[in-house]
């Protein structure tokens, strides 16, 4: 049984089959990348996994448990975290608050304790903070701890979003275009971080990405989609040379 598997997943919006009978399995500790031209259904798969969309068919299995019909917040509780293509941070809060929100699934205090701010709340807050600081150190965000998101440059926001996902202590991390909008140097950093996430933190990564150099540097396996259908699956080099893939990107 694989760590994470998608079986015959489909979703239809009206007459459009955005994801059409897609199956793949991801092993623990792997970096699995989904590529494909615009509109191929890559992000839609992520939205199906994180339960923003309701699939019209198929199953999603995580550690042997069917999570296809769990509510969105419960998926995160099971250990699946994600980032968004265009960044969904809490813009009017500080970096620290955003990261602490990543600890939400680990909250241990009740509203009653919080209103009175009992010592248990302070203890829990300190524990969360310690964890958040580990992630801050991991991703070099020390300089931005107290900045408001709204005032940060795009590249930093991208890293903050990654940090927030890591704060949930996920077992599986979904990265939606981690390098989009980043310059060359920032993309290089992202390569190192994704490798470190895999190697040092032991987190399994599923990634949607366009930047082929990043894809080939970090991915173990690549799945290519076109019009919601899988067209190739294998090592990065193989998939890039696959005739179907070349045709999908360049035309006949």
């Amino acid at each position, binding site marked *: 049984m694989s760590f994470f598997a998608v079986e015959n997943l489909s979703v239809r919006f009206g007459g459009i089959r955005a994801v059409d009978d897609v199956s793949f399995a991801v092993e623990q500790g792997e970096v699995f990348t989904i590529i494909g031209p615009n509109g191929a259904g890559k992000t839609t798969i992520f*939205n199906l996994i*994180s339960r*923003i*969309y309701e699939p019209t068919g198929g199953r999603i299995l995580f550690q042997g448990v069917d999570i296809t019909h769990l*509510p*969105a*917040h*419960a998926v*995160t*509780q099971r250990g699946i*975290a*994600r980032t*968004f*293509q*265009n*960044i*969904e*941070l*809490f*813009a*009017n*809060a500080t970096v*620290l*608050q955003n990261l*602490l*929100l*990543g*600890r*939400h*699934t680990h*909250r241990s*205090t009740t*509203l009653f304790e*919080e*209103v*009175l*701010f009992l010592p248990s*709340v*302070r203890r*829990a*807050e*300190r524990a*969360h*903070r*310690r964890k958040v600081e580990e992630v801050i150190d991991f991703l070099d965000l020390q300089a931005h701890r107290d900045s408001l998101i*709204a005032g940060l440059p*795009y590249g930093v*926001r991208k890293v903050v979003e990654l940090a*927030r996902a890591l704060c*949930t202590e996920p077992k599986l991390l979904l990265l939606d275009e981690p390098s989009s909008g980043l310059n060359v140097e920032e993309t290089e950093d992202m390569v190192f971080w994704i490798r470190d996430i895999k190697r040092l933190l032991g987190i399994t990564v599923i990634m949607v990405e366009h930047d082929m150099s990043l894809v080939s540097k970090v991915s173990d396996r690549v799945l290519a989609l076109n019009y919601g259908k899988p067209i190739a699956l294998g090592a990065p080099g193989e998939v890039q040379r696959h005739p179907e893939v070349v045709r999908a990107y360049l035309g006949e």
Partner: protein
Amino acid sequence: MRFLFRTDYNQDIDLFQFRLDRFWYGMLFASLATAPLWLDDYWISQVTYVAGFSISVLGLMLLAGFTGQVSLGHAAFVGIGAYAEAILMQRGVPFPISLILAGVLSGLIGAVIGLPALRLVGIYLAIATFAFVIIVQEVLTRWESLTGGNNGLRVPELTLFGLAIDQDWKFYYVTIVVAVLCFLGVVNVLRSPTGRAFIAIRDSEIAAQSLGVHLARYKTMAFALSAAITGIGGGLFAHKAGYLSPESFGLIGSINLLVAVLVGGIGSVHGAVFGAAFIAVLPQIIALLKDLLPDALAHQPGLEAGVFGLILVLTILFEPLGIYGRYRKLLFYVSIFPLYKRATFKRQKSYTRTERVH
């Protein structure tokens, strides 16, 4: 300029980060505690009104400012709190308990009203809650056996542990204590996971739920808490007014609360106090100005509402963070004098917002 050198996580968890803040808040409490000694009855009564009203504004601030759910129905919670307090006291429930029960009742009704909020956003939610305020007003008018209908309801004299609260300064202390407790409670929630979840819902529901925030539960919680606090403000209002009638709790009341939130400074706890003070002071300023205006204009019906509306529009256009925003800028100006640059607070356009998924 102040710089915080952190050596302990507690410094970020504590209420006051700077020693100077502790000093100023200490001064504030000291002056509040001694106010009856050096303020005359008129001002004590005014401060009592602002403190009591600021509790209700705080309730709406929690919902509108921190959870991003705009409600036009909060006057109804003021009404529910006020009537509950008066009726419970008539039945012989002693004071602090009656006020807590009034808050609880208001909170429970708030949780029920929060249910449509799970499906409605923005203006639609405002309209649904707008209907609620009218329903409650109608119920208060028709349920004569309990509320006395249009004849109104006399609020029994307040006694606290056998002590008659029969003078302005005594009621002043009651109000200040309740207000401080409410503010402290809200600030505590805001620096804990629940408060952060509220802020998350306000800024991005989609990110909030992908971080494991149970949207329905937290929105309901926000509504309940907000309604409870507003209801406690209503309970105090009952004693301040001494006499309740349904028309005090109509749409105008709701709009006043919303104006207080927006003008005070949306998304700030301080803003609740500033907003309440603004609502208390403005009618008096308008009354003073009436003498200066030409007759035709001064006796225009709806002059007050017009001025309120104008200020609201100007606030949203030119100072979206209201009086609190202005206050912060002033503090900043002083703290870095003479290095202030106009561009520091210039609003920047942001192009990184994503399109909504639903």
